[in-house]
């Protein structure tokens, strides 16, 4: 069967890739069949033979999506390998919150009145909460001046999270357990609570979405480049289809064969390589011969279904390839009505659609992963403004 140290696109400049050490655990993990059928180039006697398309077989290599992959345990904000540090933070803020609550309760009992922001405990909590909010805001400029080496980003993020959570009880005690009045105070408290809630929401998302992204999107790329990569891949496939498929007589002036009019025997297209759960993009050289007879359905399928999907992703009228199962059926049917020599081309089409599908999923996850920042960061600015006014006003009319 397929050598375990080779990927599906193992041809680079006509030579096999060198063997890469492979972990046994990964091999055992990857032995599970994938949820979708993959088109692979079968090989005869384990030897590489360029350009011989002999059929379509189910995939038995590559990381099955939806299962834990290596390194998933480190993709959480709280817990994982950093749990000892988190535990120290939890103990510290818990002790601080309990101490503050004890002082607040004692003053409440002694005075008989719910201590407000001007009371001893209330003011102390307010000052502490204000300093914490100021520190939380410093995370923003800290990202702007990474070169200053003001502590590691991980330390800053952990302090941002835990101190932010500690600010909640402090601010609540400063605000008389929400029994406050005045529109400025109400706006300040509402903004603070929304910022905290959005931060907690973002923290919860960060706990599992990166792992999901790693598992569900092995071909993850830069978010901003998803469409660009898809367009580039579409152009590669246009070149392949134009070179290997016969022209469509219904289409006037079909000069697709003229795409490779340079007379070269090989075409350089984008290939994919999967290793240890990560899919990478490589440049693959495909031998180009004359158009394969009987590939007109492939050509029509590409231009009517595959190309729009690659360029625009999932959308109205493009739901067929957006589903992995439906796409597998579609390409299986396409392979059945096409000559065996076109299996490589169909495999590239299927791979491209799979990549686009992952790109769409990555964009959705990315929006969830970063969408909360559209609330968290702007309202933090509002919080800073309101706090900057609240402090002098409160001290003036103490």
């Amino acid at each position, binding site marked *: 069967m397929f050598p375990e140290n080779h990927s599906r696109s193992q041809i680079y400049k006509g030579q096999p890739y060198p063997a890469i050490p492979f972990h046994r655990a990964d091999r055992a993990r990857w032995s599970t069949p994938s949820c979708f059928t993959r088109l692979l180039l079968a090989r005869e006697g384990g030897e590489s033979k360029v350009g011989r398309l002999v059929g379509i077989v189910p995939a038995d290599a590559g990381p099955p999506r939806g299962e834990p992959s290596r390194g998933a345990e480190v993709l959480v904000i709280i817990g994982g390998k950093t749990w000892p540090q988190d535990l120290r933070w939890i103990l510290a803020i818990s002790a601080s919150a309990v101490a503050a609550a004890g002082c607040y309760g004692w003053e409440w009992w002694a005075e*008989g*009145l719910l201590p407000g922001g*001007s009371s001893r405990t209330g003011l102390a909590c307010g000052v502490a909460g204000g300093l914490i909010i100021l520190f939380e805001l410093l995370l923003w400029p800290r990202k702007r001046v990474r070169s200053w080496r003001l502590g590691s980003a991980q330390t800053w993020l952990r302090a941002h999270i835990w101190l932010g959570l500690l600010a909640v009880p402090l601010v609540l005690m400063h605000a008389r357990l929400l029994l406050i009045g005045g529109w400025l105070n109400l706006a300040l408290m509402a903004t603070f609570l929304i910022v905290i809630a959005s931060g907690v929401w973002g923290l919860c998302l960060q706990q599992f979405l990166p792992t999901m992204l790693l598992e569900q999107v092995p071909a993850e790329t830069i978010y901003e480049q998803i469409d660009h990569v898809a367009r580039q891949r579409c152009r590669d496939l246009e070149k392949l289809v134009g070179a290997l498929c016969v022209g469509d007589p219904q289409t006037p002036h079909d000069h697709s064969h003229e795409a490779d009019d340079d007379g070269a025997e090989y075409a350089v297209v984008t290939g994919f390589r999967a290793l240890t759960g990560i899919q990478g993009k490589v440049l693959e050289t495909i031998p180009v011969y004359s158009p394969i007879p009987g590939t007109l359905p492939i050509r029509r399928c590409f231009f009517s279904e595959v190309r729009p999907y690659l360029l625009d992703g999932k959308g109205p009228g493009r739901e067929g390839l957006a589903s992995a199962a439906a796409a597998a059926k579609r390409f299986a049917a396409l392979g059945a009505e096409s000559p065996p020599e076109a299996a490589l081309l169909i495999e590239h089409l299927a791979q491209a659609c799979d990549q686009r599908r992952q790109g769409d999923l990555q964009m959705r996850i990315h929006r969830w992963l970063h969408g909360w920042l*559209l609330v968290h960061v702007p309202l933090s600015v509002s919080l800073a403004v309101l706090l900057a006014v609240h402090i002098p006003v409160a001290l003036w009319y*103490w």
Partner: protein
Amino acid sequence: MPPPPQFTPPEGSTSREQVARIDRAYFHTPNGFAVARRWLILLAFLLGVGWCAWGAWDQPRHHAPGAVAHVHAAWEHDCEACHQPLSPIRNNTWLTTPLTRQASDAACEACHRVAIHDSRQIAAEVGSCASCHTDHQGRSADLTRVSDQTCTACHAQIARHRSSVQSPADGPASSDVPITRFDNEHHPAFASLTEDPGRLKFSHGRHMRLGLTFGPTASSARSADATLWTYGQMAAGDQARYRPEGGSPSDPVQLACSSCHEFAPSLADGDLRVISAFVAGAPPGAYPLPVTFENHCAACHALPTSGRGPGAPDASAAVPHGIDPAGLRQFLEGLALRESLAADGAVLREPLPPRPLPASAGAEGRALRGLVEQRVAGSRTFVRGTCQKCHELEEATLSATGSLLPAATDAAMEAGWFRVPPTQVPGVWLGKARFNHQPHRSFSCQRCHAAADPASATGTVPVGLPEGGPLDHQMVMIAGRESCVVCHAPTQPAPHGEPIRGGARFDCVECHGYHNSNSHLFFGQAP
């Protein structure tokens, strides 16, 4: 099937060309998230600034925790009228100093002049005005409705929070009993109700019975018709006042509590006695108007000078109530002289001497003097007996000055007189608390004054008085703390069909005041 689109020639075929197609400076071009975030940050900043600018224009609603009480509404937009800049107005802050407290209190005392709470209070422990009277609680907030904790902060351990010297102005001596709340366990018994300081001999039991008899029950009273007091024995004006509608003059008199204990709201328009309620500083109806002899006793007690029977007395012969001993002597002498002259006018026919001397009166004159003296002595004895029915008397010695008899040198005329000391019946019994009868008017009087009910007048009967007529000045007829906590307590679950106990307010300020704590007893009290 629609025709496939036109084939697009690839842009490059070599790896260099393909690598060149990748935008390696993509991060310089912000994506949609970054652009949206920048705009939202700008919008949030502007919103924050705008909100604060709005607050600067409308300070009370933005910066004040709430509307001030209606009594301070005139200063709603003038924060500095009460708040000193950068000076805590309350007492429980880190930066409160005697100077800051003095500054904040000065603003309050510009309008409110209050007395100290207790002469033994420790000045350093007394908080600022705003520490107890928290404003900005809304227009209808009662600034005097402070929490119990402001009181129990000291009274829970009162011995630690006061000096040892007590002023008589502090009222009844308070104990060192810790007070933490109002109930039978955490609040001492009412100190004002421990004993009756009154010196008026009065029996509610007899006066509340039918016909004002000594009999213990109404039936026994009816059996002794001779002792019944009827409406017909009253003056015509009094009959109209006391006799119920449809009653007959021959019906025995039946008094009610309201016959003597009148409240201002129940008085007719134009009754000047209402003024006394306002002068006392209590709300109308809080306390009954004072019981006076002229208004409530004279209908039956005419104070005759001699025993003429129970018939309607001659008004001119009735002793004025409240007269002093000298006045009583002049009244009795004048009355006796008039009656003597009317009985025997011989002295009027005697010629006047050229220089009338006290000792040179004729035989007729001496006879008249003796007659007058005899009549005065008899009337005095009779009046003494009349006064003794209700009052404790003190002996008094009068000089001859002021006597109508110019030759009055008999020592017997100087002695034997008496005066009536003040009754000392408290106008307001609760000296350290307030009570308002008006909210309690739905209850029967017997609920709190059961001892005044003839059916329950079973107290110790003094020697010489018939059963059922205990003298009220020997007992307090006001229910104490145990009666109050029935209602003034937390709501307690009650079985179905039974009245719910508790539910009325029982906080300290419901009954007590802090400044001028005996507020209903003083004039010019602070609000």
